[in-house]
């Protein structure tokens, strides 16, 4: 026990004395969060609006076709498949889509003014305003050309648009990217931290000197792993704070237990990537081969694991592969917990996925480790 303790204390001291490592651990992800928060890639897409058609008549069908690009051209709205009013509204609340528009049963009938209700996420007022403008123009066109309503019956208030604001819990693209970067940082810091430390210590001959002492590899490896996990927990807390105070993300709204429940998730992810780092440092002979090897492993995950780019905009056949990556499991679980305040236990599939990866990577690490 004293040996583990001695290694952990020594390694913590070394880490905090290494200013460059500290900088890259914290400053780099912070910059990424701020920059990607500014980009707000989500707004380049057409507004995502769910449509519930209760009228199902000629006029309403024309309207829906016009909005979804049924008459040729780009769709004006990005419309999800579901037509269930309740589930669409809860998607708005979860921040997954911008708004839901409900076409009433009396739409297109001359007897009364029909009211199209748009329920929208309060924090996406700008996108909703774009959606409303589009809808007004399309409504006009639908009545004029498509439904062939005679001009004398065409009155301004044939259809009105009423806006209902709801407080969405989702966090838009910033909410998407912040937990992604937090997860990415766990991978980068665990993997690269371990790779570079170990390869350097081995090249310098420090590992060989440790091998000459009466300890077993497990003392040193467990000490290294434990230290790294402690640092990952600290790092994740700091980055989540940056997410709250700099990027304005509401971390795990209404669920304070998150701050405890995230620890097992960090540990699981940390074990996966630190073990992978150990395996790479065992395979690579020098720092010159270790760096490319580490990049080959991490770069695809950076882009395919839904850190910056949502899986919804990646081709299905890529997702079919990407969904099994360890960083996908980590980022998915982290995002659900950060954005929606979901508990750790609900993330069963992701946790199982990470656990399997942890077992594989740990076995690899033990097999590949060498002192010199």
């Amino acid at each position, binding site marked *: 026990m004293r040996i583990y303790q001695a290694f952990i204390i020594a390694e913590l001291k070394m880490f905090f004395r290494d200013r460059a490592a500290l900088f890259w651990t914290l400053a780099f992800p912070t910059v990424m969060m701020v920059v990607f928060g500014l980009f707000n890639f989500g707004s380049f897409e057409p507004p995502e609006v769910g449509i519930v058609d209760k009228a199902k008549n000629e006029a309403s069908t024309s309207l829906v076709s016009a909005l979804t690009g049924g008459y040729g051209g780009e769709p004006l709205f990005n419309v999800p498949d579901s037509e269930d009013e309740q589930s669409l509204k809860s998607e708005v609340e979860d921040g997954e889509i911008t708004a839901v528009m409900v076409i009433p049963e009396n739409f297109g009938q001359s007897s009364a003014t029909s009211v199209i209700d748009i329920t929208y996420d309060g924090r996406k007022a700008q996108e909703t305003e774009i959606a409303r403008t589009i809808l007004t123009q399309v409504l006009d066109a639908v009545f004029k050309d498509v439904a062939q309503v005679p001009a004398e019956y065409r009155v301004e208030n044939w259809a009105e648009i009423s806006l209902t604001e709801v407080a969405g819990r989702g966090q838009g693209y910033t909410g998407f990217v912040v937990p992604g970067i937090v997860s990415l940082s766990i991978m980068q810091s665990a993997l690269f931290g371990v790779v570079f430390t170990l390869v350097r210590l081995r090249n310098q001959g420090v590992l060989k000197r440790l091998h000459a002492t*009466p300890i077993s590899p497990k003392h040193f490896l467990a000490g290294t792993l434990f230290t790294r996990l402690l640092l990952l927990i600290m790092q994740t807390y700091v980055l989540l704070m940056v997410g709250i105070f700099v990027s304005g993300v509401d971390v795990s709204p209404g669920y304070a237990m998150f701050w405890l429940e995230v620890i097992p998730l960090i540990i699981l992810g940390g074990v996966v990537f630190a073990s992978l780092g150990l395996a790479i440092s065992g395979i690579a002979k020098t720092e010159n081969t270790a760096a490319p090897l580490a990049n080959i492993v991490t770069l695809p995950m950076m882009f395919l694991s839904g850190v910056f780019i949502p899986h919804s905009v990646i081709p299905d056949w890529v997702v079919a592969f990407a969904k099994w990556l360890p960083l996908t499991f980590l980022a998915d679980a982290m995002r659900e917990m950060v954005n929606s305040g979901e508990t750790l236990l609900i993330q069963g599939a992701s946790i199982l996925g990470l656990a399997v990866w942890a077992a594989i990577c740990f076995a690899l690490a033990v097999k590949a480790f060498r002192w010199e």
Partner: protein
Amino acid sequence: MTFTPQSSAQAHPLTHSNDTVIQVRDLHKRYKDIVAVDGVSFEVQRGEIFGMLGPNGAGKTTTVEILEGLRDLDSGEAYIVGIDVTKNPTRVKGMIGVQLQQNAFFDNLNLKETIELFATLYGSDMPAEEALEKVDLAERAKSQYKHLSGGQKQRLSIAVALVNNPVAMFLDEPTTGLDPQARRRMWDLIDNLRTDGMAIMLTTHYMEEAELLCDRIAIIDHGQIVALDTPQNLIDQLKTRGAEAVRKDGALTLEDVFIDLTGRSLVE
């Protein structure tokens, strides 16, 4: 510190066989198609400094690393105070002091922390100050390892090797790469270790170092010991063979012994 190797050599005669610390019998080791050690046998006694002299690649380091429990042997026997190194490497590692050829410690730890860490790894409670005092580094206790000079790094590695009060000390080319002043200081330090009564095994390719420090020297070439005796005897035997001296003043040295035995000079 005065430098008097001859007097200490006489204080520790080689006849006490029950004082044998290091025992090697017919050691063989090959790496793929290269024979590194080819039938090496020797013993080192308490209080003795035993030198292994040879060019790079002669098998010095392999022999030492087998004794340190860092490498397996192909055949032969290696014992430290009667304990089989191949069967009990961990136990042996705890009893010996080691300075590796490419020795290094953690860059960002200071000397006190380094000693304390290694004391813990060896299960020793020697205070860091005491170990640093022995190698004259007490005033640098708070310096980080990376800020030490080459000579200071080598002295620190001796301090670390002393934390477990070892029965045997292995020094693999302790002065390679040091400037003459640091080298001389290292020699004083090694010579003083003799008084602690441990067996010291030293590899070197410096003739002067072997001649000054060692009570006995094994000259090793191509994995075999080609001569094993006190430095003076090696030179005397050469004299009786009537060999010519390399030095202009005509005095025979270990260099001449080496050339005579291997047919070539040591390349530094």
